[in-house]
């Protein structure tokens, strides 16, 4: 099946965001990380485990009437760092956004360790996670040094 056919499993959107090349089976995690899961008023379509030349198989997400912000792209970097993000306006790709996972993730998610100093919401310094390795993704809190569980981290988006 061609890439184009994969994309057409769901209808084209007029305005919004298409997140392509999401690792197979990760679409729900991506939605949770973006805060789009659960209660949301915008239409969301997703296809999972469709064939992909590059990845073997992949997930695709289309969010209507919503353009991802830089903050959301930073969160996306933690669950789908190689995803392709396109902003759609009037049915055409108006902009392609790139996802950058730097050496540190600042004020994107909170450390998952319950006794970390950053669990005090009144402490004003930024939440900082160090990228220890990219593939597989390993993160550690800059302050307490604890390794981060990505499944837990999804629940700690800021």
């Amino acid at each position, binding site marked *: 099946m061609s890439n184009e056919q994969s994309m057409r499993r769901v209808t084209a959107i007029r305005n919004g965001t298409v997140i392509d090349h999401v690792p197979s089976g990760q679409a729900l995690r991506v939605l949770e990380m973006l805060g789009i899961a659960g209660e949301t008023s915008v239409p969301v379509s997703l296809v999972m485990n469709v064939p992909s030349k590059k990845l073997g198989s992949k997930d695709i997400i289309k969010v209507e009437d919503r353009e991802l912000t830089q903050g959301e792209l930073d969160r996306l970097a933690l669950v789908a760092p190689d995803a392709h993000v396109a902003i759609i306006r009037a049915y055409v790709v108006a902009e392609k956004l790139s996802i950058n996972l730097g050496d540190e993730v600042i004020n994107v998610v909170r*450390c998952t*360790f319950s*006794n*970390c*100093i*950053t*669990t*005090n919401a*009144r*402490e*004003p*310094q930024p939440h900082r996670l160090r990228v220890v390795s990219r593939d597989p993704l390993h993160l550690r*809190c*800059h*302050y*307490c*040094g*604890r*390794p981060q569980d990505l499944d837990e981290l999804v629940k700690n988006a800021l």
Partner: protein
Amino acid sequence: MTGLITMDDLTNEEILSILDDAERLLPVARGEMYLPLLQGRIMGNLFFEPSTRTRMSFETAMKRLGGGVVNLGDVKTSSVVKGETLFDTIQMVDGYTDIIAMRHPRQGAAQYAQDAARVPILNGGDGAGNHPTQTMLDLFTIRQAHGRLDGLKVVLAGDLRYGRTVHSLSHALTRFGCELIFASPALLRMPAEIVSDLREHGSNVVETEDLYASINDADVIYMTRIQKERFADEDEYARCAGAYKLHAKHLGDVKEDMIIMHPLPRVDEIHPSVDVTRHARYFEQAFNGVVARMALLCRLLGVPVPEDVASAGGVL
């Protein structure tokens, strides 16, 4: 180098050079001579949770070198109880002092404070995280006894799960190529992420529940307290604690120069009969807290320790 938050802030060469400084400062720490290297400097002692040895030895170290100390005092009567953030407390103390020694119940608090401060922070323990100044005094004690740090066989025993002392120490010993044996009840094993870190750094860690099987060829036995409150079942506690009580009668076949250490306070894990054996080093270890912290204070404040302390110092 700004502060000392974890042992990763020091290279092996820096560790050895600070231990050399500490060695030269021993007569000053013992009060045999006066060497006011830190005269005019002020240390802030910020202990957000109880401490006896660490707090007192920091204060003694600073005063032996002629420096001054300001204390946070009891947390219950300080501005912390009014809800002041750590950030704000550090901003204030940073303005009053030249260096801060700190203990805090939250992990990561020392790094957090260092990021907020202009002056160096000495981490005196943050939650179950790091306790690098304890590690420095432990390394000093080990080197004092064995003349070296590399290639020793070290048994760490007791509560390895919650004991920050053994976490920092095992990382440091791995860097010097020591062989580590972790003897603990299953419930109090060294956290898996630390064991995996140590193995990644080339350590051949052995984990066991049997303390006594490992002691005869050890160079160091490092005991820690098994805390009753960690167990839901009192019988389970009694059974576990009983298996980690070192008595002089267990020491018949140990190496002659093997030393027994303990960060103190002890409860029952080292029987008083051990105190009079040649192996007991825990009280010297507690004293070494002063000299190790003296050397660290000098290093972090950029004050060199004279090569010939005897000629530089004066009579008390």
